[in-house]
């Protein structure tokens, strides 16, 4: 079976569990015999924390985990300065110049000051990892998951074309940006948004979807994270939310039953609000997936549980 997407870009507002979902998605994609790379940028070491391994540093990829299904997940922390030096070496055989550039502060200059270049270099490294398979290079991956910047900046970040267009009108960086843009717009790339069913993350998701639409980059799935499922219908929830219901749990005192009813009223109201936000996301007309809230926090077992939920809902393989 051929995978439908080889590059999965995962974005989401801060605090929505974007990195956890990116890690879980990598595990879900790593079925029998498959090699999956998960990349992070901006040096936050969230991926290594998630997989409980020492921080990923330097330009090399490291094995993070072998999935129960028999696949392997690798990790890479993309650093703009490493990427520039590698870029110089690959395209110009300038590894010595790279070191000299570093000494002169030119690498810092180029990656920090030249607007857009940093983003081109970061996505460029991801591009290179994806292209290995197409070019039959060693260490190629069946899929690459990119733990991308948060929703507030994602459209600008992925629109590398626009970022360099105003400046580098010609030259290799422009060519590189054009190639990256072709990959990002191709049918094998998808951007997934992670959100909570809260007002702000949903609003940011709506805005990011709107911002991404003109770029011709495909949006994959909107992943509703930390959802508490309920067997109750809307009427029952509304009744509970009023706080006027009398709960009669045998074994609890009247006072305890009252405290339980008060607490449940808040929970029910929250669930109703979540349903409204779910409706807003449904209106986007995109595939939705739900990941259940885990009150015990995130550990290795929890990541695999999330991976299973994603496998069930995201149609990760071609039909």
């Amino acid at each position, binding site marked *: 079976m051929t995978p439908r997407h080889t590059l999965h870009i995962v974005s989401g507002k801060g605090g929505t569990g974007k990195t956890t979902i990116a890690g879980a998605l990598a595990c879900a994609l790593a079925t029998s015999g498959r090699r999956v790379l998960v990349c992070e940028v901006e040096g936050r070491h969230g991926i290594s924390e998630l997989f409980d391994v020492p921080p990923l540093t330097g330009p090399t990829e490291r094995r993070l985990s072998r999935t129960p299904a028999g696949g392997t997940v690798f990790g890479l922390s993309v650093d703009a300065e490493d990427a520039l030096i590698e870029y110089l070496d690959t395209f110009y055989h300038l590894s010595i110049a790279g070191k000299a550039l570093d000494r002169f502060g030119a690498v810092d200059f180029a990656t920090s000051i030249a607007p857009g270049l940093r983003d081109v270099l970061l996505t460029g490294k991801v591009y290179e990892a994806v292209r290995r398979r197409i070019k039959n290079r060693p260490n190629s991956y069946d899929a690459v998951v990119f733990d991308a910047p948060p929703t507030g900046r994602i459209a600008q970040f992925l629109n590398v074309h626009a970022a360099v267009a105003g400046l580098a009108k010609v030259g290799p960086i422009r060519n590189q940006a054009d190639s990256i843009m072709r990959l990002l717009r191709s049918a094998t790339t998808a951007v997934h948004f992670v959100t909570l069913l809260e007002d702000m993350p949903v609003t940011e998701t709506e805005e990011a979807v709107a911002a991404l639409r003109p770029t011709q980059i495909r949006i994959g799935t909107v992943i509703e994270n930390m959802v508490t499922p309920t067997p*109750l219908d809307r009427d029952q929830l509304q009744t509970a939310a009023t706080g006027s219901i009398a709960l009669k749990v045998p074994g609890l005192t009247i006072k305890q039953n009252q405290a339980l009813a008060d607490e449940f009223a808040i929970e029910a109201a929250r669930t109703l609000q979540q349903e409204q936000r779910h409706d807003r996301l449904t209106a986007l007309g995109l595939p939705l997936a739900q990941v259940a809230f885990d009150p015990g926090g995130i550990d290795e077992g929890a990541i695999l549980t999330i991976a299973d939920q994603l496998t069930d809902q995201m149609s990760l393989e071609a039909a």
Partner: protein
Amino acid sequence: MTTALESRPHAALPVPFLDVDKIIGDRETKIIICCGSGGVGKTTTSAAIAVRGAEAGRKVVVLTIDPARRLAQSLGVGELDNTPRPVTTIDTAAGGSLHAMMLDMKRTFDDVVIAHSTPEKADAILQNQFYVALSSQFSGTQEYMAMEKLGQLHAEAEAHGTWDLIVVDTPPARSALDFLDAPEHLSSLLDGRFLRMLLHPARGPMRLMTTGFSMISAAMTKILGAQIISDVQTFVRAFEALFGGFRQRATATFELLSSRHSTFLVVATPQHDALREAAYFVDRLTEEGMPLSGMVINRVHTSALATSPERALSLAEDLAGTSAVLEVEALRRHANLMRVIETESRMMERFASARPTVAQTQVQSLPTDVTDLTALRLVGALLSDKD
């Protein structure tokens, strides 16, 4: 699953209380900086402190970096922009006032250029392609301009007494340290060796290095294209006179932030990631000798019902299959909530045992979003409440 927040056997230490009212009440406190990772409620915390300060008699201005329309809404001002707007809906009985503004980094940068150069030079800079990109896209510019704006607000406060307390909501930084590093980073870049050589390739002792430099310069031209290098050169020539001022103001603001007139609050939620970032902030601020007051932990879950999750689930099981569907669901949700509370207190205990001297205040998880002044007042009260 972590090494950052190590667990110790006797974790339940008494944590010092972060007294927000005392900070607000101290007239020597002139700047409060709220920092923390994205999504922990920094903007809400800043606004709640600003409202509480203003209603306690301080003349407050709150500077937010997030384009949070909801904040503008909750304060009752239509749109926030680069100029402080008065918030008229607060209670001014104690003699205080509140202004709110949202940082527009491009406008702030433009204003600096206009204020510190001749009209012709300013025009040349503002129209330079490289400047346009630098002022609107460069990721460090936001942090840098936040510092510039803070310096301006402080100068205005000192000169005219327009306000006596500035509350700053820091940018959602790429890395937790950007806010502190940005001024030094940008000014050292603008003032750096590479740029100087780009401008004056063969001057002084640098002459000997010219051969090496021309190779580098050629490489940079290759990568970036000749256009960008020439734009940068034009920009830097026009901008050169402003460098000194930038550096000076950044240094002055940094000193102000290190002084006893400033204080930092680290905002977090009781989750692993947020606390890990908070630990990073706390350690960095401590290392730099910055005045850290303590931690605000937002969205802490609580329950008025002490029934354990195990008991709640067993009660739910007894009722399963009966008509008591609401009871079953209520018990199941209570069990979940109690598990969350257990996980959160474990996280917070680990944090406190690794950093026992860091004061804390907790704000409990609220049933609804904070979208109006009443809710901001409630958050302010919870912030100041010791329990």
